[in-house]
């Protein structure tokens, strides 16, 4: 068996920094299998106690939006000002709203 030119597959790493927070993308590592990916993510990205939970995802499994479609995907949400609380005028006397 010869080593593929690609080496071990790439995994993207997501870390929960503290209980109650979302997992956040921090970078990637290489690993042969998922268990190794968790160990490598731990050794590379949490040496200073940066995390309490790790997700690893094969990079090949991620589907990302296309930057060229950013306009079509995200611009329509921009002009829906009525979705935001500041759109509504409420008299000052009503303090609890």
């Amino acid at each position, binding site marked *: *068996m010869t*080593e593929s*030119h690609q080496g071990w597959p790439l995994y993207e790493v997501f870390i929960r920094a503290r209980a109650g927070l979302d997992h956040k993308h921090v*970078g990637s590592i290489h690993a*042969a299998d998922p268990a190794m990916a968790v160990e490598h993510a731990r050794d*590379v990205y949490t*040496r*200073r106690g940066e995390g309490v939970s790790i997700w690893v995802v094969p990079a090949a499994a991620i589907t990302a939006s296309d*930057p060229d479609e950013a306009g079509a995907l995200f611009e329509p949400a921009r002009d829906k000002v009525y979705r935001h609380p500041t759109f509504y005028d409420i008299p000052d006397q009503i303090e609890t709203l």
Partner: protein
Amino acid sequence: MYTQGLDQAGYDTGYAQDDAALAQRFQARVDAEDKIEPKDWMPDAYRRTLVRQIAQHAHSEIVGMLPEGNWITRAPSLRRKAILIAKVQDEGGHGAYLYSAAETLGVARETLVDQLLSGAAKYSSIFNYPTLTWADAGAIGWLVDGAAIMNQIPLCRCSYGPYARAMVRICREESFHQRQGYELMLALCRGTEAQKNMAQGALNRWWWPAVMMFGPSDRDSKHTTQSQRWKIKRFTNDELRQKFVDFTVPQAEFLGLTIPDPELRFDADTGHYEHGPIDWSEFDAVVKGNGPCNRERLAARRTAHEEGRWVREAAAAHAAKQALRRAAEAR
């Protein structure tokens, strides 16, 4: 630790005609301090420049594990041994962050490693100097990591998002390196005569290589402008070098050590230290592969890679077997 090669290899700046509009939009985003992300359009030359610079930076971290790693087994106290292992480990971690950033540009780590091992890729020439005494481990932290920080802090604002984010992480850890190096030197300088001599010897050997880490003088560096326009680079080599000298000279004075530059003097008018002429012929020789340790460093990396091959293959083979077993169970 650090990037120095950014001014060395060939560069191309032009865009194809039909990309002109995209290029204009790209430059406008860079000018507006917008971050460029992996899937965004970018000029080929920008991509190539980044891959080269990030890879050189990553390789420097990896090769940079060796000179200090040389003292792990001989560290003179358990506290120092733990600090040094953690520090060398951080260099490896920085290499990993940077390979990760380079891979977002579409180049596999394996390819980058091959380029390092074949000698095609450069790494910072500073790591081709030997660590002859324990004080060298301190001098590297103090001077080499100190110089690296000068370079790296501006890179945290680099226009390419994944590189900038990797640099933020690295810079946070790098200041620990510089402080531990200085503290190590301080312990030696407050110690016995022999320890102080050891510290002075290390400063004598590492001062000029550290000063050269910033790369050729601006007068001889033709690429600075394009890199600055792309906001990959924020300051010129000489600006950063001057800052390093200004910071470091008082630190050496506090240690009671003498900087090995008889022409070094403080210019009251400019508020800066002026250093003597740099021997660029030595720098060129080391960059071309003829430094004291170029051969050993690459040989050590090649040996680790070759001797690790069966391990990497085993893990890949086991993962493939496991995947087949899972597929069979699912059926």
